[in-house]
């Protein structure tokens, strides 16, 4: 069974450093994509924003505001250095600094995603584990049907169904629209979070549930679990001490995916519930062709992916002795 191993045992730290550097490279490339997708397109962004029949002096004013009168390469570097200094420019629609706008909206979105993840992850683990231990029994099959249907549905469909059930046609227990007046603490508006968070949870729950179920089933069949049983270890302990710790490892990456997925999901969900967060800021900005805001939100979204994945890699290494220790 010998087969050459042409990797040398890399220490976890060195590997992580390599990943971090790669992450920085990815972030740079992301900024290029965002810039190319918006500002560097053929044609004049100023005209695209104001429309073809705009007065020439207004177009010129906007060109100056956006710094479009220098070569494209320099525009990019000006914009990039601004971002690195935390300056995303000024919103064209509200004339305010983009960073200020993003701070208030961002807090709301962060709370929304955090709340959803805090519900989704433990519930999926419980449901997935419960289902795995009842493999092929009715309980497991009903979880299968539920997750198959839920995975298939786009968030806005799930959200609309929730609105129909809880906020309009069937009952009116909850608000269909999330009102959080600007400048007020979102903590006073808990009911505004319920339906958007529930939508995000239902959209991501099936994926993580299935992931953990599969991982548990695999681990429960592992030789070391059988060995623990043959040692006379009590079933409770077999599951909690031998199966779960190993089954949890893949769910770290899975949870990272859920988080980044939610970050994208807020665009539709916030629009649906008119929730004042980053997602609805993006749709508003696109409707207004508010270039600096669009660029800022796209960069933030993508950066989040890089950071979350890096964290997940780190956690996976911490949880896996084989990766953590440097011995071959």
């Amino acid at each position, binding site marked *: 069974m010998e087969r050459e191993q042409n990797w040398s045992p890399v220490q976890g730290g060195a590997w992580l450093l390599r990943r971090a550097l790669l992450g920085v490279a*990815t972030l740079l490339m992301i900024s290029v994509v965002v810039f190319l997708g918006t500002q560097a397109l053929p044609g004049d962004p100023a005209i695209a924003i104001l429309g073809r029949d705009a007065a020439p002096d207004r177009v010129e004013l906007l060109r100056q505001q956006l710094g479009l009168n220098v070569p494209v390469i320099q525009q990019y570097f000006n914009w990039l250095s601004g971002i690195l200094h935390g300056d995303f420019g000024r919103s064209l629609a509200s004339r305010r600094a983009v960073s200020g706008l993003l701070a208030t909206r961002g807090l709301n979105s962060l709370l929304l995603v955090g709340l959803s993840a805090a519900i989704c992850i433990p519930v999926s683990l419980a449901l997935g584990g419960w289902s795995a231990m009842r493999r092929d029994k009715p309980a497991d099959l009903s979880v299968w049907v539920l997750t198959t249907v839920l995975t298939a549905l786009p968030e806005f469909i799930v959200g609309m169904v929730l609105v129909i059930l809880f906020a309009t046609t069937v009952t009116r227990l909850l608000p269909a629209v999330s009102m959080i007046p600007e400048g007020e603490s979102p903590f006073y508006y808990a009911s505004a979070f319920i339906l958007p968070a529930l939508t995000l949870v239902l959209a991501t729950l099936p994926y993580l549930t299935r992931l953990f179920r599969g991982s548990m089933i695999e681990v429960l069949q592992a030789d070391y679990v059988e060995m623990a049983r043959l040692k006379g270890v009590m079933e409770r302990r077999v599951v909690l001490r031998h199966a779960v710790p190993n089954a949890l490892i893949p769910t770290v990456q899975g949870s990272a995916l859920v988080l980044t997925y939610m970050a994208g999901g807020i665009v*539709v969900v916030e629009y649906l519930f008119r929730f004042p967060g980053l997602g609805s800021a993006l*749709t508003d900005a696109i409707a207004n062709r508010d270039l600096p805001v669009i660029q800022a939100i796209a960069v933030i979204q993508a950066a989040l992916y890089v950071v979350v994945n890096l964290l997940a890699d780190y956690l996976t290494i911490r949880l896996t002795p084989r990766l953590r220790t440097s011995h071959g």
Partner: protein
Amino acid sequence: MAVGTAMVALVIGVAVLGPMLAPHTPTQFVQRPYALPSAKALLGTDGLGRDVLSRVLNGGFSVLWMSLAATAIGAALGTTIGLVAGYSRSIIDDVLMWLTDVVLAFPQVVLVLLFVSMLGPQLWLIVLVVSISHAPRVARMVRGVTIEIVNQPFIEAAETIGVPTRDILLRELLPNLVTPLMVEIGLRMTWSIGIVAGISFLGFGIQPPASDWGLMISENRDGLILQPFGVLAPLAMIAVFTIGTNLLAEAISRSASNIGDVSPNT
């Protein structure tokens, strides 16, 4: 399997044949706005007094062709990237995977919106960007399976007996990828529908007064309390479509694991 096929067939039937069966044109004023179902308008009317049934029958084609096209292009692109990356065993693999990571960093909807923001809501652009956002996801799966297969000696055996690279990719590798690819295409189709309809729902897809399921949900949701069918009917169509494609993907992957593509132990 049968359920999934029936659901998908139903939606395709409605999307393709719907326009011929519709009692009214999608933009015709039929009755007062938000009228409840009646003999004149079986599913009632929308906020502009147009017949909901006719709009549903007319509103499926755009979702259907756009998601099909985006899935097909994305799968082809992703398969090519994944095969090359997985088989190359060189720096090409690292570079391709890094590039996919850049695309993956953008949530699919955000990537589409980014390009739509300046170029405007053009359908070909949406199809193109959705397919580009699918490609890395397909590529990763294909690369993973390819590496798994390449690590089995039969590929090396083919190399030692002098099979040309093109034949190795197309005749030795690709047949082993068919099942996982079909599952992946089913899943990608489910996502395509969701994204395409979602973009319409956000108002950046097909533009009014044309009818489209995603757009209808968005247009009619303010009248939900007066007339729920304007939302319910297109919502049901999208749901049936996505659940159908997902069930098909599920069925393929189940039947594949029953056959067991892996060789038996000795």
